[in-house]
């Protein structure tokens, strides 16, 4: 066993942007203006794209299912560290999802890097006299490293590390123009809001580590499945919070991370402000790739989700997709309008995940990445061409000045609106060419699954329970139900699955478990599905509004219009991405994800469902949904054109209508959520700080002042009494005694020789007298001497 070249390629593709980052950090200033950018294009994304292309081509054209499965199963894991008895492993997760995501990220990012060179040409690139051109590309390279690492990680821990790195890059790039005030606030807002979500992610990670005993994606899923089947571990816990079991809390915690990164409802506030960054950054990070990381995370931990957790996911997705879609209607800043449409589309993906539409949500992620990156690049082109004007109301009539941008944008509008001709296909069978682009497949597929989950779920679950109890191949059947009911037809999977029957057979033993899942998974509330359908009408409306008032009609600002132009460096990526949007996604990415879904969605607790709406046979069974969702774009377009055909006057008129006025204020203020957060969190923080300051001033300081007083009193007692009269008294007493003694002893020292002689003689005389006349006299030497 050793690494396969695919793993090595993907790992090198992760490392190449990092090397590019360090090279630019150290040598960027020397490379100079265009060279640093081209260096990043080649080393930061060109090499990863080449490596990813090689792996993807092999994966798609050469490898068969058996080879792919063996590559996935035999991927090498290195042990990074030991935590207690648990090894933390690191490795490349080599499966269809990673390959598809990796290719998408490198492809989109490459063209955005390319676009950036043209974009940065005309931008001020000096801060305090220091060139920051190279820094832009260094950050972009670091982002490439983080995002590719995130996609390729096999372990939740490393996924989390790269996740945070991506957040850091987002922070750095939003605040790229840090000499202005707004980007500074925006970058802080993004970072702090993401931390809130990451807090939940960390809790989820800890629960995974504690109960499932590993952070490896596959290992955790296997442990979860085992614990689910045997009712041990996390399922044995009786802990509940808000009626959620511990397993649900784990899933919701992991989803909190996705909420932050993918900017879902309570934490969505940072994304519109993230538009403070340069436009290529908005395209790359805040529309196409990074914000999709949240959806990717949910896809990866799908196997650790419980029905309750997924219901929460669906609820958050529904709120986001509807509320943010409506806000997009009233935006006038071209980038903010796109930002809100991104929020809404991310809501669709999250909603899809919550429904169990694993394939559809990821498919939508990839189609969205293509067309949203392109739309943002178009907006960058427009902003650049119009001399940094972002207000759409001042544009208009740009189609003649910027034809390529205009029509690329139009392709994006069609894609996000889900344009196509439902129910019609050229050719037949497996190779039928369906007429539609982008969201026509991906968004409608999410809606199809939502329809199945909300309207037909009772039928489906009865049907599945019945089949499940028969055992045997029930698992495979459950995932690929056959014709009997219309619901079953909804769930027909793609042809790729049929070839995999052999592989799925080993999962057959879980049949009974699957049946119980269907019994446990509640139907989706109908209002969620209806809101998703409603937003499918809103999306084409605001997109067409945007396109129309930017490119069509009469020029509204002579200065802006006069200036408008486009350059090849900027529109080449637009053309490439629009071609990608038109052709690549359905025929390439969807089958890739469908391949991935086989092992990645073998969820023990929930069911991934597959509902490809636009396959003719299935479409035939769903006239209502087909017409409801399939033609939504026409209605949206028609309303938008009707309103904005004659400029902005009609829209202004509508805005002044009684009920519309209030609605407009509500939407324009974004439901006052920003103001609420400002009031609750920022004002709350300041209030808390004020309270703490008061406590500090009047309580803590008072206590310390009292303490100081007490100490001073104690000091005065010891100083004045003990020290002054005690210690000093002893010292002074000794000194005084010495002085007195010395006075006494000094007095004989007269300095007169005669006195000394007399004194000496006197003493000698006294000694002599004592010796001579001492009382016992016996041993008197004088007496002896004088005696005889």
């Amino acid at each position, binding site marked *: 066993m050793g690494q396969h070249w695919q793993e090595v390629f993907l790992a090198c593709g992760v490392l190449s942007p990092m090397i590019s980052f360090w090279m630019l950090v150290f040598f960027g200033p020397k490379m100079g203006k265009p060279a640093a950018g081209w260096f990043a294009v080649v080393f930061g994304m060109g090499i990863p794209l080449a490596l990813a292309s090689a792996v993807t081509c092999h994966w798609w054209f050469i490898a068969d299912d058996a080879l792919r499965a063996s590559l996935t199963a035999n991927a090498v894991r290195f042990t990074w560290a030991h935590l207690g008895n648990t090894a933390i492993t690191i490795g490349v997760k080599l499966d269809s999802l990673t390959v598809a995501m990796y290719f998408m990220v490198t492809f989109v990012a490459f063209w955005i890097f390319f676009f950036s060179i043209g974009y940065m040409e005309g931008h001020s690139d000096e801060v305090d006299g220091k060139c920051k051109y190279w820094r832009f590309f260094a950050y972009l390279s670091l982002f490439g490293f983080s995002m590719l690492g995130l996609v390729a990680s096999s372990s939740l821990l490393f996924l989390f590390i790269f996740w945070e790195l991506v957040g850091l890059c987002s922070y750095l790039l939003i605040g790229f123009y840090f000499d202005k005030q707004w980007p500074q606030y925006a970058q802080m807002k993004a970072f702090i809001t993401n931390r809130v979500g990451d807090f939940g992610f960390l809790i989820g990670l800890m629960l995974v580590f504690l109960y499932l005993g590993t952070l490896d994606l596959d290992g955790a899923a296997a442990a979860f499945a085992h614990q689910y089947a045997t009712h041990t571990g996390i399922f044995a816990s009786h802990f509940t919070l808000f009626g959620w079991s511990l397993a649900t809390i784990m899933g919701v915690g992991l989803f909190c991370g996705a909420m932050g990164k993918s900017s879902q409802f309570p934490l969505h506030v940072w994304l519109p402000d993230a538009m403070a960054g340069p436009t290529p950054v908005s395209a790359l990070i805040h529309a196409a790739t990074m914000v999709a990381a949240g959806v990717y995370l949910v896809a990866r931990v799908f196997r650790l989700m419980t029905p309750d957790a997924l219901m929460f996911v669906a609820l958050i997705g529904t709120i986001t997709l509807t509320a943010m879609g409506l806000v997009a209607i009233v935006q006038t800043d071209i980038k903010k309008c796109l930002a809100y449409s991104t929020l809404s589309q991310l809501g669709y993906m999250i909603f899809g995940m919550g429904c169990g539409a694993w394939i559809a949500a990821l498919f939508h992620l990839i189609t969205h990445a293509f067309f949203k990156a392109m739309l943002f690049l178009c907006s960058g082109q427009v902003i650049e061409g119009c001399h940094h004007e972002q207000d759409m109301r001042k544009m208009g009539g740009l189609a003649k000045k910027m034809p390529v941008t205009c029509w690329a944008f139009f392709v994006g509008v069609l894609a996000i609106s889900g344009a196509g001709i439902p129910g019609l296909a050229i050719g037949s069978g497996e190779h039928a060419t369906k007429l539609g682009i982008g969201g026509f497949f991906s968004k409608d597929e999410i809606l199809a699954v939502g329809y199945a989950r909300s309207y037909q779920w009772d039928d489906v679950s009865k049907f599945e329970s019945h089949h499940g109890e028969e055992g045997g191949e029930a698992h495979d059947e459950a995932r690929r139900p056959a014709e009997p009911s219309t619901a079953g037809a909804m769930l027909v999977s793609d042809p790729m699955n049929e070839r995999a029957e052999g592989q799925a057979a080993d999962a057959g033993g879980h049949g009974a478990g699957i049946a119980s899942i269907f019994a446990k998974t509640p139907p989706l509330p109908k209002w969620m599905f209806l809101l998703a359908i409603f937003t499918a009408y809103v999306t084409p409306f605001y997109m067409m509004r945007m396109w129309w008032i930017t490119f069509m009609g009469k020029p509204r600002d002579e200065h802006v219009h006069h200036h408008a132009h486009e350059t090849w460096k900027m529109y080449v990526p637009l053309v490439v991405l629009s071609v990608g949007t038109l052709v690549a996604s359905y025929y390439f990415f969807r089958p890739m994800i469908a391949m991935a879904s086989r092992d990645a969605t073998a969820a023990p607790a929930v069911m991934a469902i597959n509902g490809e709406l636009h396959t003719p046979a299935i479409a035939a069974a769903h006239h209502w949904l087909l017409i409801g969702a399939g033609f939504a774009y026409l209605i949206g377009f028609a309303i938008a054109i009707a309103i904005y055909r004659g400029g902005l006057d009609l829209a202004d008129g509508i805005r002044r209508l009684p009920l519309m006025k209030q609605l407009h204020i509500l939407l324009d203020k974004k439901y006052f959520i920003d103001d609420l957060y400002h009031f609750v969190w920022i004002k709350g923080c300041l209030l808390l700080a004020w309270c703490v300051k008061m406590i500090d001033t009047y309580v803590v300081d008072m206590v310390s002042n009292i303490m100081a007083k007490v100490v001073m009193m104690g000091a005065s007692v010891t100083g004045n009494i003990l020290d002054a009269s005690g210690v000093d008294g002893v010292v002074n007493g000794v000194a005084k005694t010495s002085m007195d003694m010395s006075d006494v002893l000094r007095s004989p020292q007269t*300095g007169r020789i005669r006195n000394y*002689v007399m004194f000496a*003689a006197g003493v000698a005389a006294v000694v002599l007298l004592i010796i001579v006349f001492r009382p016992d006299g016996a041993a008197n030497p004088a007496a002896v001497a004088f005696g005889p």
Partner: protein
Amino acid sequence: MTIGLTHYLIVAAVLFCSGLFTMMTKRNAIGILIGVELVLNSAGVNLVAFDRYLGPGKLDGQITTLFVIVLAAAEAAIAVGICINLYKNMATVDVDKASRLRG
């Protein structure tokens, strides 16, 4: 009347007392020096007398006395030197004036 030890001792005592008295009464430094010489010589007389009467046949006393004489000479030389210096400094040899080292 034979001349015995006691007579020598009396002479020595008279000498000693004279020297002591001289030391105590004279203000002249040279006078004091003379007193000192008297005291030393009284000790010499004593030593010679004790040697003669208490330890006959030995010359300890005599030799010690010779040392005392040499010592006295050396002492006189130093003392005269002090006197000269005293005179140089104070233009007098009155020891009562030279009381700068009093306590």
